């Protein structure tokens, strides 16, 4: 009888201990799983921030390098070309006095070549650093870009905005929108065989939207991204947007062609205007 009672207690205690272990096991799995997910999320966030920082630094370096090259072209080559032009002007007067027509013709050709080179250098400098964007804002920069393109290409580019006075945004945001617009328009010209491009810039209280639509052959963004090199332009757009918390969406309108819509949260300018190109400045530019 004594043994029977002891057996009962032993069984009860063993069963309860086993149950306690089972409860602990379930609780542990739930707790550990939750902890691991939190840890994984934290690591992902760190990785994401790190990649973003890396991308930001790369783009900053690119812009700094562009500015440095533009500065060198403007200060060194540009100055030397201007001096060459002045010297040629003086020489031209001497040649004109000598009365030799052949020498005069060579002189005029040299002067015209130098002037053309000066124009080229100016254009390259402007392309490298969008000074209009920095000085006058996004709408003026886009209009200037369109004007230049229409001169060089046989296509119609329409630009419209939902506001006449587009409020100035942070330098990084404006540059991002400008570069994306450049990339999308260049892509349309290079790959879409289009005859018309529509650029729409819209702003509301929270978001800025940039839509570039063409009437070309259209494309499948996913397929292009899969083929490594062809997708670099689109990846570049996505990388730039990731830094400013923006998104991009590609559509294929029913009437043909393609349409890309970039959306970026509004970030009004802080008031620090960038320095214009200056002959003696070489500091790093933080955009």
């Amino acid at each position, binding site marked *: 009888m004594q043994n029977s009672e002891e057996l*009962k207690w032993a069984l009860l205690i063993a*069963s309860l201990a*086993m149950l306690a272990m089972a*409860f602990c096991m379930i609780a542990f799995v739930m707790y550990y799983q939750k902890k691991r*997910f939190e840890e994984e999320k934290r690591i992902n966030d760190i990785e994401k921030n790190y990649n973003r920082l890396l991308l930001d630094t790369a783009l900053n370096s690119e812009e700094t390098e562009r500015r440095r090259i533009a500065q060198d072209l403007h200060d060194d080559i540009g100055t030397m070309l201007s001096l060459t032009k002045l010297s040629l002007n003086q020489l031209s007067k001497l040649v004109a006095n000598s009365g030799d027509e052949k020498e005069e013709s060579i002189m005029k050709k040299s002067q015209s070549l130098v002037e053309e080179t000066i124009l080229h250098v100016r254009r390259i400098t402007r392309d490298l650093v969008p000074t209009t964007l920095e000085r006058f804002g996004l709408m003026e920069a886009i209009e200037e870009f369109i004007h230049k393109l229409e001169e060089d290409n046989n296509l119609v580019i329409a630009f419209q905005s939902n506001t006449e006075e587009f409020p100035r945004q942070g330098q990084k945001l404006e540059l991002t929108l400008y570069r994306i617009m450049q990339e999308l328009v260049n892509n349309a010209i290079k790959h879409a065989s289009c005859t018309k491009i529509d650029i729409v810039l819209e702003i509301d209280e929270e978001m800025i939207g940039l839509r570039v639509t063409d009437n070309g052959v259209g494309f499948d963004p996913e397929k292009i991204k899969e083929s490594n090199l062809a997708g670099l332009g689109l990846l570049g757009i996505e990388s730039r947007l990731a830094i400013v918390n923006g998104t991009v969406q590609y559509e294929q309108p029913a009437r043909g062609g393609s349409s890309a819509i970039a959306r970026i949260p509004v970030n009004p300018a802080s008031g620090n205007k960038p320095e214009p190109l200056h002959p003696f400045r070489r500091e790093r530019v933080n955009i």
Partner: protein
Amino acid sequence: MFDSHFAYIVNNPISSIAVFVTVLPLTLTITRKAFLDKSLRLLFCYLVSKLIIDIIMLHLASTRTNNLILYNLSIPLFYALLSGMFYFQFTGKAQKGFVLTSIVGVFVFSIWDIFNSNENLGDLNEHRLVLYAKTVEGVLMISLILLYFYEIIKSLQIPNLLTFPFFWVCSGLLLYYSSLIFLAPFLHYTYTWNNQTDLGITEVIPSIFEILCAVLFSVGIYNFSPRKYAK
């Protein structure tokens, strides 16, 4: 007509509730369409067979007939259905192989144990519970559950366990088999026709956790969404 049945239910309320509580997860399986999932379809089969066997056992018990042969025969059937659920949950070939092998193993072992525990199989009145098979079933089920928990933690594919149906099913099974594992071998000696040993509250613990297990099954099935499953 059902006087003896009612009397039995009144005298054994906990074990009777453990029989009828199976209706709850069964109903939920139908209403939530949980049978769309392969594992939960096997759970549905388990619940149906368990309800049928339990009702027959309750009927036999209330009419003072030895029903232990059904309990013994249900061991390989229940193990096949419950471990079969893990077959669909595991991704590794080794685990799947282990599940299939163990089903065959438990079937063979249970049959052997029925013969081993009963010298005269023809005498159903003196039929006794198996000595080892239930414990082996419990050990294997707990091993499968722990292996599955390890897989869950390792793969990190389930963001919220509380809304994952199979986690609740596993929790219910783990608690039920944990409550039974030490007790099972003793039932061979205590569940005899001329029983002299009363295990008291310990004997009721598995029934309590059978009820809890059914409730946890119900929670899991309630969390099943056909829409999510389709995705």
